[in-house]
């Protein structure tokens, strides 16, 4: 199976006042064409940085990226910023966690939506507006003409997220990075947005990277799952396999931390005792060791290598669940 996106040994460091912060380290992910891959992990585990680094969207003199990213035959990490930019919109696109902050507050929806069409597809102003209206209909916005003339602050959260999806799919991308697209939304709206993404993915034959901190979201919406912890992918498997036969103690802890349905907390925030390690100083051993109930002496001393089951299931653990040692 050919990969649409192939990430090899991706690393991202930020120079900060407190020293070098290693946000992403040694990430390997293959995203086969036509699939949806979930990326799960607690807040701060490096999901956003990983996606933005893959697309080349991290700006600033304090960002150091290493490794290789190949998208649709293009080695992004060897291309200039301008060359990579030519793949945005029609190749890769991204939707963001908070649709309030990700839409420009001072520009009308119509101009933000038609902009990509005009710049990337070189449409005329009129054609772009007509297409923009179609796109709003495509994301099931009931009154597209009014919305085109609105400012983001005049719309509800769910509407804004639909607008953002419309902007992202405007130029028919092959791969959509959806960075926690439902985290900022009400539970009922979350389900609608996920449903919309599922349908669009099918209609547009689009692959997707679905980032979330909620294993529940991953379940019905992805073919593969990458579990991230402290900047690393610690487990990677087909979604059904992961739920049925997980290897990582961290994945298990994530799953156990999903609140019961009757637990009326609104959002489902994963809570695991303890905290993520300090990203400017990750000790020598397994980064999960201080919180892991299976941890043994070796875990504190040696960083676990990436291991691969015969079926391709990847994990990083000295004492994986369900494997006889």
């Amino acid at each position: 199976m050919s990969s649409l996106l192939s990430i090899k040994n991706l690393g991202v460091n930020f120079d900060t006042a407190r020293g070098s912060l290693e946000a992403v380290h040694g990430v390997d992910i293959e995203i086969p064409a036509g699939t949806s891959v979930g990326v799960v992990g607690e807040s701060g585990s490096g999901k956003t940085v990983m996606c933005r680094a893959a697309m080349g969207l991290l700006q600033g003199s304090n960002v150091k990226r290493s490794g290789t990213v190949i998208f649709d035959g293009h080695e992004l990490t060897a291309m200039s910023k301008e060359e990579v930019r030519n793949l945005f919109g029609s190749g890769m696109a991204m939707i963001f966690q908070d649709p309030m902050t990700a839409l420009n507050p001072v520009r009308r929806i119509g101009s933000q939506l038609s902009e990509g069409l005009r710049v990337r597809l070189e449409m005329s102003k009129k054609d772009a507006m007509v297409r923009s209206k179609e796109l709003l209909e495509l994301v099931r916005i009931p009154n597209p003409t009014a919305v085109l003339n609105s400012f983001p602050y005049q719309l509800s959260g769910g509407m804004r997220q639909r607008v953002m999806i419309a902007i992202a799919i405007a130029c028919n991308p092959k791969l959509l990075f959806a960075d926690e697209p439902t985290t900022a939304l009400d539970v009922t709206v979350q389900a609608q947005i996920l449903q919309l993404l599922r349908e669009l993915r099918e209609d547009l034959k689009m692959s997707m990277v679905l980032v979330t901190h909620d294993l529940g979201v991953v379940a019905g919406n992805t073919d593969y799952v990458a579990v991230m912890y402290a900047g690393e992918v610690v487990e990677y498997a087909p979604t059904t396999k992961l739920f049925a036969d997980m290897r990582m103690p961290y994945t298990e802890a994530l799953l156990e931390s999903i609140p019961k349905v009757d637990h009326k907390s609104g959002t489902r925030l994963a809570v695991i005792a303890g905290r993520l390690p300090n990203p400017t100083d990750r000790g020598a051993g397994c980064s999960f060791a201080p919180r892991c109930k299976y941890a043994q002496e070796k875990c504190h001393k040696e960083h676990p290598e990436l291991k691969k089951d015969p079926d391709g299931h990847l994990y990083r653990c000295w004492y994986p669940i369900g494997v006889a040692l």
Partner: protein
Amino acid sequence: MFKFGFWLQRVAQLLIVLLLVTFGVSMLLRLIPVDLATILLPVASEEERVMLRAELGFDKGPIGYYLQWLGNFVQGDFGKIYFSGGTENVSDHLKQAMPRSLLLMVYTQVLALAIAIPLGVLSAYRAGRRSDKVISNTLFTLSSIPNFAIALLLIIFIGVKFAWLPTLGYVPIAEGYWEHLKHMIMPVISLSVGLIATYTRLLRADMIAALREDYVTMAASKGLSDQRILWRHVLRPSSVTLMTSAALSMGGLIGGAIVIESIFATYGVGFEVFAAIAGRQYIAMQSTVAVIALFYVFFNLVVDIGTGFVDPRTRDRRVNA
């Protein structure tokens, strides 16, 4: 979307500010422990002074005096400037001084903004890098030179040594635009330098904050060029502080360019205030200060309207205001 109630309220607020300012100046005047009539008419007879007191309302209480002055002011009677032997109307002085000050202000603002906006955008875009440091340090150094020193340097080199530009006086536009401009260039540069530094710093800070926003990454992920993102997506939401600062300095330039107006003998409104104080022409001072306050308030209102266009969120807040 014109929120009538909001603007009515805003105008009322500004009118109250105007009344308070003019009343304050009026009270200060009456607090001076001297006889104003004697100061205005030093060599006149007592009868003439009694007449002046009655004419100007000095014989009334402070509030009566203020109301009389205000009544005259709103009808365009700004009072007189008294000489030994004659008077001139303050309004005639202002009629001559106001276009000079307004033009000086407009040129200064245009020059300052035309330079500060690109510099601010560039230094925010290159924040922390060489070009940013060069811009920041240069502007910091320049802004620490007082504007009269810049004026003197310009006069010494451009005016005297190379004799490129005239060093003194004002030429109305009617007598030739180029001649007019030649007289304005050096005063305008002297006044702009400090403003350029301030404006660049404000815009840079707001742009750096805006560049961290998700909508910038979003715009980048649409495949837009950095240029387009900076000018079309980041500049506008970052310019509200700059606009407010510009409004304040517009008022300041109308009434506060005393030193520069004196050095270059362009004699605008600032100089009128100075002359009124130096010549103890208190009525002239009171009316001129009131006119300057009027301009402050007017520019404030203009910027209020302007920010509504630049940032629609401020318009929304007004609905609930």
